[in-house]
């Protein structure tokens, strides 16, 4: 069976949901004929036309606010940022308008924010960011970050159907690199459920998106040395699936948190905090993090690589933790 890339899985989700529900529409810069900077929306315009695949001028805030307006009266907008880094230009609409509407006056806001994010491409400080922690801190936003094509498909479909604003982080490095065979028919991944990506006994890795793959590779590597690592793919960061996380932590008693965002006040800190609170008695070692260094992303690839939390850094951290 043909393999589907992570990118094609997202496109399939958009296509299927737009077919299913005429209220679903896509909006963003260059998303129509051009199909978006990464060509994720390629082909949608031809099928659904300009009122459901809406090119906007270069205005993140305007587009996000407009999405809210449309959502209030029954539409289910999906807004693409050309790069996640540009979301800061529409920040207020997300964190104060979209996120808070339901709590304030109980009007649901079905809305998906597509954020092509992350580094590894030597794209410099403004095309490499991982902004999930900002959104995780805002009550009323769900934050998801699939790492496989199956979840990219299934979580996008679930996000579109959910009556809440969902920040959907899609890793640009995975777009064309991750592939797998997906069945036909309806495939939904539930929001709010983590996935045990690899079973193990002595160290739990908590990760998501690109670093999930680096973590799996690292786990594989240290397995040869007799270190048994369980890898949890969080998939949904908010709300957190504490059940799955704590079960693994309590089983393994050591934890490594791996994410691509910078360390300080990153989402990994929240994971560490919950573990240090809820699983304290089960811990046999310090809760460790492997993350991007607290710097902007340098343009130079080697520099970027030095700061990225890749397989080698994870392996080193696992070894240290195993020895602890």
């Amino acid at each position: 069976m043909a393999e589907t890339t992570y990118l094609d899985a997202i496109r399939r989700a958009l296509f299927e949901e737009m077919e299913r529900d005429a209220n679903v529409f896509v909006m963003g810069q260059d998303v129509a004929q051009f199909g978006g900077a990464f060509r994720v929306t390629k082909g949608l315009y031809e099928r659904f036309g300009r009122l459901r695949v809406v090119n906007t001028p270069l205005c993140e805030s305007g587009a996000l606010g407009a999405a809210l307006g449309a959502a209030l009266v029954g539409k289910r907008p999906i807004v693409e940022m050309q790069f996640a880094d540009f979301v800061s230009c529409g920040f207020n609409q997300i964190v104060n308008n979209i996120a808070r509407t339901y709590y304030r006056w109980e009007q649901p806001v079905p809305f998906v924010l597509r954020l092509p994010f992350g580094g590894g491409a030597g794209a410099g400080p403004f095309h490499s960011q991982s902004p999930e922690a900002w959104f995780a801190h805002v009550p009323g936003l769900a934050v998801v970050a699939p790492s496989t094509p199956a979840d990219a498909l299934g979580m996008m479909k679930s996000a579109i159907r959910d009556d809440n604003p969902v920040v959907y982080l899609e890793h640009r490095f995975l777009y064309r690199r991750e592939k797998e065979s997906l069945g036909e028919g309806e495939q939904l991944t539930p929001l709010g459920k983590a996935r045990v990506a690899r079973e193990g006994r002595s160290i739990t890795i908590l990760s998501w998106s690109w670093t999930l793959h680096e973590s799996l590779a690292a786990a594989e590597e240290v397995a040869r040395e007799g270190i048994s690592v369980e890898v949890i793919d969080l998939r949904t960061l908010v709300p957190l699936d504490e059940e799955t996380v704590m079960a693994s932590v309590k089983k393994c008693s050591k934890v490594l948190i791996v994410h691509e965002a910078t360390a300080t006040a990153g989402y990994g800190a929240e994971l560490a905090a919950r573990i240090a609170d809820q699983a304290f008695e089960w811990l046999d070692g310090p809760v460790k993090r492997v993350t991007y260094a607290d710097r902007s992303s340098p343009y130079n690839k080697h520099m970027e690589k030095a700061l990225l939390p890749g397989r080698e850094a994870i392996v080193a951290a696992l070894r240290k933790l195993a020895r602890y």
Partner: protein
Amino acid sequence: MAEQTAGTPSPTTLRRAHFFMRLSRAWDSRFESMARAGNIGRWYSAVGNEATTVGAALSLLPNDALSTVHRDLGAILTHYLDPTRLAPALFEPQDRTAWDALRPDPGALLHRLASQVLGRRDGFTRGVDRSFHYGLIDRATGLRHVGMISHLGAMIPVAAGLALANLQDGNQNVVVGFIGEGATSQGDFHEALNMAGVMKLPLILVVENNRYAFSTPLHEQFACEKLSDRAPGYGIAGETFDGTDFEAVHGAFERALARARTGEGATLLEAMLPRMRGHAEGDGSYELIAADERARWLTHDPLPRFEAWLTRIGAADAARIAAVQETATAIIEAAVARGLATPEPELHEAWRNPFAPGPVADAFARQHAEVTRG
């Protein structure tokens, strides 16, 4: 009748306008006195804005949307309430529109509104948010109202999105949005109007230019001659008018609505309004304005002007004017009294799930609640 010309609004329109302008003013009077007595928190007066707010909302139809900020009580009242049921004595049978018949019970709605503004349990947010910081979207009655967040300007793109949904649905509905002139300096004003121009959105944005943003006078806010000079930059229509002159308001809206409903696109309206109050009751911003300027603006009250005009064109006599004023005052007195007698919101509302029902809300609820309480 001498002055009544072709463009003059219908008698029904004038009766509704008069009633809602007085209803809005009566509300303000009541709340201003409570604010002065320290019985409520901040109060943002809408005194002086009535001809514009009421005039804007009068011509809306079911599923037209209204987007309001902090001085648009008049528009909200006009949009929500069936006056023929609320004040039957003041209206004729032919004043009752088809939409009035659809509209919810005006007494109940007024109670929710008063409770909302008073922060009581029966308010739209049940205590979670303040005053006009809410919305009301009701498919059954075609009521579409979106209130504000505090971040000024942020609702303009939202209004554009409401209008976009109309295009997508292929209907003739329109959106009327309000904004203070201060907020026109925000990027969102620009981004939204630019989209409105490009997409030919059925949007009417009304700038309520009351000469100050908090303490900041116009010349420190912008250097254009009039804000409607910005319309050509968006390829949309623009007009500046005297927002205390009901006829001018009505005319401007009729033109803008006609454009919006026939696919000609958006209009930027600038209503010039008098500075009859400070920014918020008792915040010191009124005192900063020179005494003679304050005195001058007080002479620009749209209400006596409207009533004098009604009298001149023979649309109302002194008795009717008095009846409208008294009825409006009585309705508001009763609504506020009932609001004040309504219990405080229930504490547990604070803990309500920030997510709409579904898997996300369930997952949120499954998290260890104690995380915030040690």
